[in-house]
């Protein structure tokens, strides 16, 4: 997995609460058996004026000019500024895949849906949680200044604004560690293989019906 220590980039808006995973990546694109290539279809129904189909060349599709991320001032945005309960709905990891493939490295919002939040960390995408007031401040500053850039320092857990002031954020030690080092989580778990086998032995003795049912 791609490591994340510090990132600076242009902030782009998704200014509504409860952005769901169907909005992030509509279902027709879930038919792919690959992990990559979802970027052109991120926010597909908001971003384009026609209905997107998998495998299509998106460069010739009619673009919704009113959709904020389509505005030239947010071109190349790599930090998504969002509102509460971002990523609610399905467990599709295609949502963080699409955000990452589009070019986002981090999201800043007051809260996330649990499964989406968890999925981000598996893909080197950092979901930062700030308070609603802090997110408001960032939205206001971003709206006022074209090319508004933020720096996110995961190591010191800070979002640094252009004026040098910063907001601190909280994050689980384990998740931070995996992201900072770009660790392979499965590899880490496999180091506990003996503990897993021991657990299975104990369980087999007390609850034998748990094992061997599916043949």
């Amino acid at each position, binding site marked *: 997995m791609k490591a994340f220590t510090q990132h600076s980039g242009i902030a782009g808006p998704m200014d*509504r*609460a*409860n952005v*769901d995973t*169907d*909005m992030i990546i*509509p*279902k*027709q694109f*879930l*038919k*792919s*058996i*690959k*992990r990559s290539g979802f970027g052109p279809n991120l926010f597909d*129904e908001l971003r384009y004026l026609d209905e997107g189909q*998998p*495998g299509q060349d998106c460069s010739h599709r009619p673009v919704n000019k009113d959709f904020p991320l389509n505005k030239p001032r947010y071109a190349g945005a790599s930090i998504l500024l969002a*509102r*509460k*309960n971002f990523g*609610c*709905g*399905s*467990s*599709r*990891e295609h949502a*963080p895949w699409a955000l990452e493939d589009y070019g986002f490295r981090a999201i800043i919002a007051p*809260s996330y*849906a*649990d*499964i989406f939040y*968890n*999925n981000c960390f*598996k*893909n080197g995408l950092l979901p930062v949680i700030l308070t609603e007031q802090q997110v408001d401040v960032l939205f206001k500053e971003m709206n006022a200044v074209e090319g508004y850039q933020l720096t996110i320092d995961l190591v010191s857990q800070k979002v640094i604004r252009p004026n040098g002031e910063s907001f601190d954020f909280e994050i*689980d*030690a*384990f998740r931070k*560690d995996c992201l900072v080092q770009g660790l392979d*989580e*499965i590899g880490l*778990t*496999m180091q*506990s*293989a003996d*503990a*897993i086998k021991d*657990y*299975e032995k104990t*369980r087999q003795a007390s*609850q*034998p*019906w*748990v*094992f*061997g*049912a*599916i*043949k």
Partner: protein
Amino acid sequence: MSGKTVYDKLWDSHLVKKNEDGSALIYIDRHILHEVTSPQAFEGLRMAGRKPWRLDTNVATPDHNISTDPAERAAGVAGIPDATSRIQVQTLDDNCDHFGIKEFKMNEMGQGIVHVMGPELGATMPGFTVVCGDSHTATHGALACLAHGIGTSEVEHVLASQCLVTKKMKNMRVTVDGELGAGVTPKDVVLAIIAEIGTAGGNGHAIEFAGSVFREMSIEGRMTVCNMAIEAGARVGLVAVDEKTVDYCKGRQFMPSGELFEQAAEYWRTLVSDADAVFDTEVSIDGNAIAPQVSWGTSPEMVVPVTANIPKVEDQTDEVKQKGVERALEYMGLEGGAPITSVYVDRVFIGSCTNSRIEDMRAAAKIVEGHRVSSSVKQALVVPGSQMVKEQAEAEGLDKIFTAAGLDWREPGCSMCLAMNADKLGAGEHCASTSNRNFEGRQGNGGRTHLMSPEMAAAAAITGHIVDVRTFSGEQS
């Protein structure tokens, strides 16, 4: 020390290892796979040269993007019209064959929507940890399981190690006491709960549904409720074990039998929250006061009782809510203040992992029997949740009742709940739907979903508009 909740007990009994940083390694008893969220996980296993840790824990089936059309279905995988869908279903078959994973293939008895299939085959047992790459996995919590959706990276993680790295959630109890009125169903109960606590109300929590309403409810009804815990933000929803749970489990394909069943049942009966257990969050709702519910907007919290009017923008208290209601009304093409029963429907969908079990089929059939689908309704689909539900419904003659009334009787699958196959809404079309999400575009680009119970959807099919099933007479207006 205070007592334990069901969730605490499930957590403790699956703890493999606690890490210093607060995370934990949790053992997974049952892993259910489908075609959409598994291909990249199998690919990851292959690339890392890993094998599944255990084979007798996984069970797979295609459900999300298979055709429900009987003729297309009869032609097998080759009959799936969309090439990308066909490849995905074929890939699941190939992966399961390659790794030796038990799969109920598309037209095999046992196949069905993952969350209908698991319990009905007895693959889901009380006291289990159950995961699946699908957010509606909470459904299995109806059997007192710690069940939740996972992403594809975690599907790979579970395949490889039989474990997940996770953190304990908080405990929430939603108590609904009282007695449900006639025409009020488990779907109405859960929609009323979501309307009350909101789509983020359960974030970070495992919800236990408690109180007389759930004790009286059938296991299938409890599945409908737990299924939508995620729509209240909670990954996990569950109901404690009682004799209904034990009875439900008896005789199912993968369940233990004889003495082993009795031994298991003795353990299962301990899966109730202790009287002195403490919940981080408590919510109480009066079951007597719940009316049939209908969603009017684009989030499952945008729900009103069928007797109410669609909300107005100006009645909202804060600016974010006003914006949300305004945008939802615009998308739905509705006017604030109009009665919800004034909404005409273009299509009706009875199905999904929320409401496609035999009790749902019976309830819908009872409403439409002897009536005809309104001429203004373009299509009314009934999609049974599994091959077993379909077989049972046909044995009871329910399919004949549906087709005589002008509804389409289909093959099992997820269908119009998420419209990954050809079953979808056209832009601007309103749908009376028994599914779980009314997000923008969920049932088709530009489609407008109204969530409700099977009874309410069946009644809407006959009258052509949203109607209170309690006063429904079958008259078309």
